[in-house]
């Protein structure tokens, strides 16, 4: 049986791992090369690296940094943030990434998902969705782009379905409302998307306790859970997380 995945996420800005709340008030969480190696050694199931600087000027630096991180990472490695072309994906995949996540570029031009899937296979194409609860429509979520700075009127669940059709092989679903709060994932959002697509959904944003992870998997039907604060600052080790989930009957890679 397929194990549920525990995925730490490195939000990287100016060469450092940072963690904020609602994508703001960033605080330093360490060196990405060191943290990446630590997670790989500690039994994380995957590692996500999101370049949150993501300006054109910084692309070369990011590629070099991804290469350095990948050198010590022997678990799957997803890189995202500011990717806007298939060529950029190719470059990252060559220097050690297994998957690339697309967000703003896919919203602006969904065709990139199709072109990426045709070239790399859909298992390589992660659609990152930053969703915020709609203030006008209850039980719906709006897609935001450009690292949460720009709202769109796109419905998150509908976008997930369209993205999967276009070629995404996985959804990295972040609740902007829950991000960094450590008060739990947005279960309703996770469940709504997981029920609407047949590709795996990674729940992201809000992990604070072990119970939150359990809920995202069982109630939210997430295939994988992403976290940052609770493992970066060593509230829990990867092993503690996996043992807890295993003891509650969830298949994990332990």
């Amino acid at each position, binding site marked *: 049986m397929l194990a549920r*995945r525990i995925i730490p996420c490195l939000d990287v800005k100016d060469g450092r791992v940072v963690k904020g709340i609602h994508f703001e008030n960033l605080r330093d969480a360490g060196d990405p090369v060191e943290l990446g190696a630590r997670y790989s050694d500690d039994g994380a199931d995957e590692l996500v690296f999101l370049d949150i600087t993501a300006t054109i000027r910084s692309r070369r630096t990011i590629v070099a940094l991804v290469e350095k991180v990948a050198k010590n990472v*022997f678990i799957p490695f997803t890189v995202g943030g500011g990717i806007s072309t298939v060529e950029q994906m190719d470059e990252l995949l060559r220097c050690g990434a297994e998957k690339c996540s697309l967000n703003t570029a896919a919203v602006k031009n969904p065709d990139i998902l199709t072109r990426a899937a045709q070239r790399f296979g859909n298992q390589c194409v992660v659609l990152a969705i930053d969703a915020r609860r709609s203030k006008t429509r209850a039980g719906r979520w709006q897609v935001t782009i450009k690292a949460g700075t720009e709202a769109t009127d796109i419905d998150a669940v509908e976008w997930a379905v369209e993205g999967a059709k276009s070629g995404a092989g996985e959804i990295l679903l972040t609740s902007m409302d829950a991000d960094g709060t450590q008060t739990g994932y947005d279960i309703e959002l996770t469940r709504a998307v997981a029920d609407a697509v047949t590709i795996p959904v990674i729940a992201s944003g809000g992990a604070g306790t072990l119970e939150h992870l359990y809920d995202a998997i069982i109630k939210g039907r997430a295939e994988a859970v992403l976290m940052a604060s609770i493992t970066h600052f060593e509230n829990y080790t990867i092993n503690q997380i996996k043992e807890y989930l295993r003891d509650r009957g969830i298949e994990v890679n332990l």
Partner: protein
Amino acid sequence: MIIVIDYNVGNVKSVCNAFQYVGCEVGLSCDRKKIEKAAALVLPGVAAFGFAAKALGNLADFIKDLALAGKPLLGICVGYQMLFDESCEFGAHKGLGLVSGKVVPLPPGRVIPHMGWNKVALPEDMALFAGLESEKHFYFAHSFYADVTDKAAKIACADYGFNLPASIQKGSIYGTQFHPEKSGPQGLQILRNFAQIARGGQT
């Protein structure tokens, strides 16, 4: 030296990194002389089958001949799928035909892609799994799989609602649908074992 075939597909660096980490001399090349001189070959790949087959181009026959002559060959993911006769991912494409079987879509009714760590039952008589327990989790990321029909091939399977072929061995031809270079310590052990095979330790 083990040569990882460089044919314009992703994730080649990860494979090299992992071989280096286990203390193995490894090179990345598409140069025929180097490929011919190598102790063993690795055909890696993160790509759609058709793209990979096209990218390999006329190196395909060259590699096939070397493998048939007994040079150990390890195919990983799409590189593994290419060991078979054909695939139907985004159209029909020919593989190397070293192992009989077709690459077909995963059957519906489950989460696809098959993405993540699944437990593989490891037969004792498969050299890649030396030194590992009888079952271990390995990292998979694929939407197509090889329906292996080759009677001469040993097969290790994972359970994904059906017996999913996860690794094969046929003579000195080896393949893993999963990514050993991205499967933590147990994956690195597989690469160590392949390096041992390359040194002539096992066949």
